[in-house]
């Protein structure tokens, strides 16, 4: 344990994390283990509300692990142990009293590969509101579906074929359908795990434009392998390396003059 503390004590990110005013999500001294193997070391990070925060780093650096901690997706992984705290608006999300289903309604997620349910476009978006009982009747449900599709920038393209299967849409449309499905339950935070890596550049640009629009209503966290994407869509960037949060700050700062040599080497495409 002492070794871990020494490692994280040097990290400049520790001081910076404390500097976020009014964070929506806050991780404090977060350690994550998969069995005996430690995957994250003392992460301290504040995620500000109504901003896009991106996580970057080489494969296996812990960024996806950390993302999955934020809505307790790691609960489902055998042998995964989380220590430290994560708070959502000052509420500890690992508190025993927390209903995980409710938590995931507040913190939605969009995955790398679009994964619409084998149902109609309408039912895909209506799924969440139905199981959470968010509408009293069909009219209200239709309203929610329409508004969500609209916000996801998809309504115009699908409004005449809401009963067709969601799987029949193009990849980019499917991903926007998944975003519509995520926002249908009015979450506060949307986590995105490489949402564009299976999409072509045009579909990617549409999603990026959408992310920028969504941030006025939601807090967004995105994991991406494309540093250009992180630079384009996020206001804040966190760089992970070997399970540590190496550096964290405003995106323009990180991409023009990072303070840690490891960040520098990674984002400039040097071996790191």
């Amino acid at each position, binding site marked *: 344990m002492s070794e871990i503390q020494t490692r994280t004590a040097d990290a400049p990110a520790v001081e910076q994390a404390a500097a976020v005013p009014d964070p929506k999500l806050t991780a404090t001294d977060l350690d994550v283990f998969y069995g005996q193997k430690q995957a994250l070391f003392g992460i301290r990070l504040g995620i500000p509300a109504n901003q896009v925060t991106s996580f970057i780093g080489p494969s296996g650096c812990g960024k996806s692990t950390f993302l999955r901690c934020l809505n307790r997706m790691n609960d489902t992984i055998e042998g995964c142990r989380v220590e430290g705290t994560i708070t959502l608006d000052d509420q500890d999300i690992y508190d025993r009293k927390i209903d995980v289903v409710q938590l995931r309604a507040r913190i939605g997620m969009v995955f790398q590969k679009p994964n619409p349910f084998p149902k109609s476009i309408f039912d895909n978006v209506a799924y969440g509101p139905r199981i959470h009982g968010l509408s009293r009747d069909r009219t209200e449900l239709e309203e929610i579906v329409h508004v969500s599709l609209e916000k996801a920038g998809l309504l115009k393209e699908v409004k005449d074929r809401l009963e067709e299967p969601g799987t029949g849409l193009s990849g980019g449309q499917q991903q926007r359908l998944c975003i519509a499905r995520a926002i249908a339950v009015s979450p506060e935070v949307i986590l995105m795990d490489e949402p564009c890596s299976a999409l072509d550049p045009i579909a990617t640009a549409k999603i990026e434009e959408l992310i920028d629009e969504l941030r006025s209503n939601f807090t967004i966290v995105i994991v991406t392998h494309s540093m250009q994407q992180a630079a384009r869509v996020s206001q804040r960037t966190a760089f992970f390396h070997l399970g540590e949060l190496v550096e964290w700050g405003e995106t323009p700062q990180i*991409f*023009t*003059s990072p303070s840690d*040599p490891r*960040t*520098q*080497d990674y984002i400039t*495409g*040097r071996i790191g």
Partner: protein
Amino acid sequence: MNGENTHIVSAFDQELAKLNDIIIQMGGLAEAQINSSIHAVIKRDTERAGIVVEGDKKIDQLERELEELAVKVLALRQPMASDLRAVVGALKISSDIERIGDYAKNIAKRAIALAQVPPVEPLRSVPRMGWLVQQIMKQTLDAYITRDPAAATEAWQRDAEVDDLYNSLFRELLTYMMEDPRTITACTHVLFIAKNIERMGDHATNICEIVHFMATGKAMPEDRKKTDTTSFTVVDKT
């Protein structure tokens, strides 16, 4: 792991090295042009002046070459952090050097004009200014090559000396012209030559600031006090 490491894509390293080489070559040429143009003035050497005027084309051509390469690197490699600063810095430095070259060329042209009129006394101060700027230019280029922010700051501070020399030469020329209006043609050329040298110094300080930013990612801290006061200078007609 540090900034000295090579890129995974080695062609990127070669392109950055090429940008670096062009800047060094441009800087070396500009330094030589300053030297030659001042010599042409004091030795009344019109042939040498002609060579300087011709020589400026090479600097211009290198600037275009650098611009093309820099734009290509930006478009194809999307450089980040220190690489981005290196490319943007090279672009800016090249235009500063190009301007320095233009001033040298202008001095050479005036050397040709001055060779046709009788020499004037204040001309003696010109070489001192010229050598000083040439030295600052050399220091600046060394700071660029080594990416040394301390050396850049040192070179930057020396521009105050250039301004001081310029201020006194400006006053001297005004006095001289009032005393003997027949010298106005020559003195005006000398005045412009001095102004050109002073501007070269300013461009050198720009380069120092860029080098500092390239090396550290931060702007140079304090503002240097402007010591060129000639814009406010009047001479009493007594």
